[in-house]
């Protein structure tokens, strides 16, 4: 059973957002991180020093590992930002200020 079935969810209509231009489906109320996880994506940032991939770690806004660029604003915590239709997500490299 998947989580939506488990909670007997009847979400509002799905919409699309983009990750680096590629369309990703999202459900109303889901955060950036939730939609990316649902699409099977677990990393969307590379670190400043070693360029290593990162995604969700703490999931509750404490660790800052899931930073991402949302509608050209870098350093947003993917686990906190709720998606709206048409949002453009970009994987963030380093501080996100070099883009």
């Amino acid at each position: 059973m998947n989580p939506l079935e488990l909670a007997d969810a009847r979400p509002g209509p799905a919409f699309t957002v983009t990750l680096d231009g590629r369309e990703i489906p999202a459900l109303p109320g889901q955060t950036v991180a939730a939609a990316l996880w649902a699409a099977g994506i677990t990393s969307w940032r590379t670190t400043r020093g070693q360029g290593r991939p990162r995604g969700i770690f703490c999931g509750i806004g404490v660790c800052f590992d899931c930073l991402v660029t949302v509608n050209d604003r870098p350093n947003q915590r993917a686990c906190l930002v709720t998606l709206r239709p048409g949002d453009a997500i970009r994987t963030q490299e380093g501080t996100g200020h070099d883009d």
Partner: protein
Amino acid sequence: MTERPHLAVIGAGPAGLAASLAAAARGVRVTLIDAAPDAGGQFYRQPATGLGARRPQALHHQWRTWERLRDGLAAQADIRHLTEHHVWCVERKSSGSDRPDAFTVHALLGPLQEEPATVHADAVLLATGGYERVLPFPGWTLPGVVTAGGAQAMLKAGLVVPGRVAVVAGTGPLLLPVATGLAAAGVRVEALVESADPKAVVRHTRALAAKLPEAARYAARLLRHRVRFLPRNAVVEAHGDERVESVTVAALDADGRVRPGTGRRIPCDTLAIGHGMLPHTDLAETLGCRLDGVRVHADEEQRTDVPGVWAAGESTGIGGAALSLAEGHIAGRSIAARLAGRTPDPRGWATAAKSRTKLGEFAAALDTVYAPPAHWTEQVTDDTVVCRCEEVTAGAIREAVGGLGAADVRTVKLLTRAGMGWCQGRMCGPAVAGLASCELTPARRPFARPVPLGVLAQEAQEAQEAEATDAAEAARETRKAQDHAHPTEKELS
């Protein structure tokens, strides 16, 4: 005009909700301030409204208690619930709790946290909860490695799971609901790896007896989902290149050391890991509240040692939702009495106090049983990243300690930048303390979360303007007083 006293409650988890309801029922105006879009905190984290979950209780425990809190909040007109308010500082404006507007709570609004908001109150309750402690090991920064609580939070709120095949590992009672929750949500949980020794539980049966039926229920669920339970084992490495592909699990000896030759690989795409929890104490520290170790000190009434500031729930020591409810209830009643100028009668909350004592003993027993393995640092290789934000390795920290003589977390930070990044050492603090063989001390962060410079500048400007207004008023008052006191001088002039 005499206004009713006003309480600001920070945190809408079990402690904050219980306190708000208890205080509001006794005539206090309450503003409940919380970062989430819905009440509940981490324990009762709710699915996003847009997901239309008809059976959210499938992901929860003690659902009836939640319904009682939720309905109480909805029915109580004296509680104003501010959602998506991220509090970064509580400012104490005057020394006495009997003064109106004694406190200003500073928050940032919405998910982007850029717009400021303030709340003025006569008293403050800190119900700021806790966060997970995760100790490093090789591979722990790979995508797919998440905190156990994080995996649970994403499941409860977003109705998503991190992958298809998981290992849940570390130590502590949280691992049980996480493993069973992921399994119920369709994840194949290959193993629940617990470093503690379950035999130790037997030595604490008196305090733990009440929880044995709950443990038995979890055991049955693990069995039903065919989750292997591996006690006295630990994940010593996560393997993968761009994400986790497998983990190595090894057995521990009686001293908590890895037994050589026992390592075995378990393929998985997710590792959910946690080593217990730590209290959020930032706001309390800024207010100057006394801390006992890493927890906020609170007396029998849940008062901190700063007048007008109460604390309840995980911020005063990790002990679970039931203890948080008891502490919150006591705090709410104490606040209502104190703000009305009365000394509260503790007999009024005797039941809650009794449960607080029992649950406190239980939490202490759990703490003893579920301590991280004594020799966990031996598995941390020099090239393991310890500070995730600043990418500081264990080797650099060892060099700061062994080569440069650092003997505390702060000195390591100054020498290596460990703890200087975005999360301000919340993630690496316990690890640095362990590697440096020193006590984990409170970090003394000036703000509880990042604040845009623009907001600080605006606050400073407003404070300056207020000061100027006050000064002008004071000057007018002085002139008036002088005019009054020396009419003859005026007549003469």
